[in-house]
């Protein structure tokens, strides 16, 4: 067996490396090393991690088609689930840290602050994707419908970047970097579609 075909090894690598940031955050929290404003840091870190994994899932198809790295496909589900995992962590940090667990204040806050609304919609769109990520669900839905549903990923990625851009005060370097990454990855898909039609 070669490394390229050793998907068990790939999965282990991804599982551990994807979880490491969460482990560090918990560890740093435990030893009180999350800086002066832990809520702000954890909110930012989990949000950025969710975006990073969103970008990584979008990267799988272009890498397969451009370089023939088909072995990546087997890991895409776990990458997507990590995006969801950090999205959940991001939401929980907001509810615990920003809302002091006052769940009833969340709807009002969502309506009051447009950037929260954009983030919340993006998160809610991730829920059906995570729920239909099992083999059984793919079988049940059929590949075509499943693929159609999972194109929501594009919308979620755009929503995530917009959400980030909206909260930044003036230094847009990081949101811009994510916008360029997501933009290129979506432009690639558009180009492929156009070539198919032509």
């Amino acid at each position, binding site marked *: 067996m070669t490394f390229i075909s050793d998907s068990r090894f790939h999965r282990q*690598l991804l599982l*551990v*490396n994807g979880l490491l940031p969460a482990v560090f955050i918990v560890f740093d929290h435990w030893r009180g090393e999350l800086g002066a*404003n832990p809520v702000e840091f954890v909110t930012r870190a989990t949000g950025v991690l969710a975006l990073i994994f969103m970008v990584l899932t979008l990267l799988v198809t272009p890498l397969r088609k451009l370089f023939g790295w088909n072995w990546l496909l087997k890991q895409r589900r776990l990458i997507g689930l990590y995006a969801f995992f950090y999205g959940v962590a991001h939401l929980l940090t907001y509810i615990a840290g920003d809302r*002091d667990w006052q769940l009833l204040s969340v709807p009002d806050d969502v309506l009051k602050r*447009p950037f929260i609304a954009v983030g919340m919609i993006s998160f809610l769109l991730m829920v059906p994707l995570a729920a239909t990520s099992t083999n059984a669900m793919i079988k049940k839905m059929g590949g075509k419908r499943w693929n159609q549903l999972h194109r929501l990923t594009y919308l979620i990625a755009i929503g995530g970047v917009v959400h980030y851009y909206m909260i930044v005060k*003036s230094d847009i370097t990081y949101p811009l970097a994510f916008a360029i990454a997501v933009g290129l990855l979506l432009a690639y898909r558009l180009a492929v579609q156009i070539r198919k039609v032509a």
Partner: protein
Amino acid sequence: MSKSPEIPPSEITPEETFLNRRFFMKSAIWAGTTVATTGLYRTFSPRADVENTGTAIASTADPSVTSHLLPDEKLNTFEEIAGYNNFYEFSTDKSEVAAKAKNFVTNPWSVEVTGLVQKPRTFNLEEILKFESEERTYRFRCVEGWSMVIPWVGFPLAKLLSLVEPMSGATHVAFTSYHDLKQMPDSVFAGIDLPYVEGLRLDEAMHPLTLLATGLYGKTLPNQNGAPVRLVVPWKYGFKSIKSVVKIELTDKEPPTTWNLANAREYGFYSNVNPTVDHPRWSQARERRIGEGGTRETLMFNGYADQVASLYAGMDLRKNF
């Protein structure tokens, strides 16, 4: 299994060597990826390595203004105050500013006081430090929704202004921060026009609470907190308290201010702390006191209403935010 006659038996890797090599390769990949992930995380995670390297400043305590804190309010630690800073000239990451400002040169320094004054004058650092210093403990409320309690050392701005004798036509005071791309290379990412400028009405500037701070916790200011001299206006959002001041100009009209220029809808000239007027993107009703678990109520004029509310009598604070 199919035969492969083209490979002579001597060239087939013995199973043991193959497994060893595989084990070695896998270990290397494990080590490489986890070290890379850890390094990437650590690049962005906050570092707490601030040292109080300032020199001591002799000062007198001012009990009339330091006893105003609520019973449950306590001073923030030096590490909190000097490790979490908005100083966009150095970095837009609050936990990065201390490291980026480490080699900032603050001596020699001079503050030019000019404009509508009888006796324009440039103060050098020595002259600034000669003003009789007081310890002033103030709440500090950032427009972002966090706050601290900081034991400043400094003197009322009024003392300096009376030395230069403002003309009768002067109505406002404009402040300018130091800016220099060589010492502040990351300021190109700030997203705001620099040098940083701020302004006050003359009566706000002359108010006894308005301070020119030269230190905190009994020692000269750390660079990241606006060394060697900064403004502190405790009843306004933190960004009004301009850092590393190099110029003070008396004028007869409202001067431009940096955040107002960047986004006039979100940041007004007055920017008084006001829990009833929200920022367009977030509520200002509560604040996160650094070092505390939950949030606490934001006080009108940051708790200094009895001393400053009269400055704004008859004004619509919703319009003049």
